């Protein structure tokens, strides 16, 4: 038996416990009820699921195009600066020419110009290594009339005055030929520009096609909802309310599709980039790397993908909004 004192203490405690658990039960019931409320917009119909799929596919293709264009643009720019960063002075051997002296003079001339960051003579050993594939190992440079090179490193921003350099070289070392890679760079720039322009045009077409497809797919998915819009309208829902419900529903559906498509495209780029970096040492890897850099589309590429995804999701929501408004206007004649 409990003492009266103890039961006096027990009673409020039990009551407290009861109140608390009742409160918890009520809270649980309330959250359960709230979760049970069906969304105003019916769950996805077949047309709705087709829309999500179409959005995913179109986003994927758009993002691939965008990534490819980014890649080409970055690669072209990299090539340009790479090649524009160097010039070479070639000195052909001639009767009675002191090759080492001529190389030294040529380097001194080149180094004296503004915009030249440095000039290095390709020494005998390096020259031999360069020629090894053609002439075989164990080559003695001094026995053959091999031309020698001075590599001039250039500040790509402030290029030196090549005409003046060429004239001065002709005086100092008559058998020297200066190649500033101008022809190469010009052709590359032209080619890169054309490629990027074509890429941009393709991207533009791709994005327009995506926008149109998304609009039609959304309208297709909305077609079955005319009845819902009417009922909501007749039970006194304001246009803003109806439009908001549909916008939200289609924003979520559109984001789902677009994010899936964008993610798939990013995965493709990441996998290619990983593959090319793993294959750097192999001939195939080197070739693709030479063509496309390392396949990584860089920060701007990823931002572009994110932007495309957001735009497409937004477009889906906007289309549903305008479809609702147009439908309401038609009812209200």
């Amino acid at each position, binding site marked *: 038996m409990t003492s009266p004192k103890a039961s006096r203490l027990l009673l409020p405690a039990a009551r407290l416990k009861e109140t608390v658990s009742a409160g918890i039960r009520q809270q649980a019931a309330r959250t359960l009820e709230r979760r049970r409320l069906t969304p105003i917009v*019916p769950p996805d119909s077949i047309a709705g699921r087709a829309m999500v799929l179409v959005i995913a596919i179109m986003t994927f293709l758009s993002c691939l195009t965008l990534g490819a264009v980014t890649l080409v643009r970055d690669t072209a720019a990299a090539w340009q600066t790479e090649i524009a960063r160097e010039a070479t002075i070639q000195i052909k051997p001639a009767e009675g020419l002191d090759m080492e002296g001529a190389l030294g003079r040529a380097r001194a001339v080149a180094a004296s110009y503004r915009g030249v960051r440095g000039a290095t003579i390709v020494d005998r050993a390096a020259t031999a290594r360069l020629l090894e594939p053609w002439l075989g190992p164990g080559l003695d440079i001094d026995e053959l009339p091999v031309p020698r090179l001075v590599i001039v490193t250039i500040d790509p921003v402030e290029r030196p005055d090549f005409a003046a350099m060429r004239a001065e070289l002709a005086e100092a070392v008559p058998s020297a030929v200066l190649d500033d890679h101008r022809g190469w760079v010009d052709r590359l720039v032209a080619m890169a520009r054309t490629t990027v322009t074509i890429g941009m045009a393709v991207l533009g077409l791709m994005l327009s096609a995506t926008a149109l497809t998304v609009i039609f797919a959304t309208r297709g998915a909305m077609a079955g909802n005319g009845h819902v819009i009417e*009922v*909501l309208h*007749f*039970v006194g829902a304001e246009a803003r309310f109806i439009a908001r419900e549909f916008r939200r529903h289609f924003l979520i559906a559109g984001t789902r599709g677009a994010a899936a498509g964008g993610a798939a495209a990013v995965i493709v780029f990441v996998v290619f980039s990983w593959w090319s970096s793993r294959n750097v040492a192999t001939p195939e890897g080197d070739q693709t790397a030479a063509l496309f850099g390392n396949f990584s589309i860089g920060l701007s590429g990823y931002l572009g993908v994110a932007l495309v995804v957001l735009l497409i999701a937004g477009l889906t929501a906007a289309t549903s909004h305008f479809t609702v408004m147009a439908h309401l206007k038609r009812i*209200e*004649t």
Partner: protein
Amino acid sequence: MIRFENVGLRYGMGPEVLRDVSFVLPERSFQFLSGPSGTGKTTLLRLLFLSLKPTRGLITIFGKDRSRITREELPHIRRRIGVVFQDFRLLDHMTTYENVALPLRVRGREEASYRADVVELLKWVGLGERMHVLPPVLSGGEKQRAAIARALIEQPRILLADEPTGNVDPQLARRLLRLLIELNRMGTAVVVATHDIGLMDQVDARRMVLSGGRLEIYD
């Protein structure tokens, strides 16, 4: 409460469906709207519900000129008018309970604040057991009662019912009619569109009869 003066209506370029229709619907009144099929009963109800604009004539509703009511005001005025459509117009993806609660939900009311009222109303129309069922599995008469409950949930000042006994047996028709009369006794004006003479004979109420686009009233 609602006044029509020489109201005419045509759909597009078609013939005039309603011609020179004039009448007054007083508060708390009960009336039948009858006439052969295709004479414009639904059309007249749509005018009353503000989902159509008259091509000519004057409609005054709750003291307001119909032609001056803007699109933004419409939802507010509609809340005072309950409608039961000829084809019910329930949303198939929502339960009966949610369908009946829809007018309150679209106004942004919290579910907890109206749950008891909705349940009470569902019991009153005899759907207490069918509350959590989706409309596609309801019988015609049950759908009809769900539609009536939805029209009543906001306690409108007038109820418009389009063929509420259209596809139910005579016994259920009588029960639905009693429901509407009870509602009228509690203060709601009621307009019942029907071409069921047997139904009208059960109540001594005002009759508005449409024929050839004109309206005759028998008090």
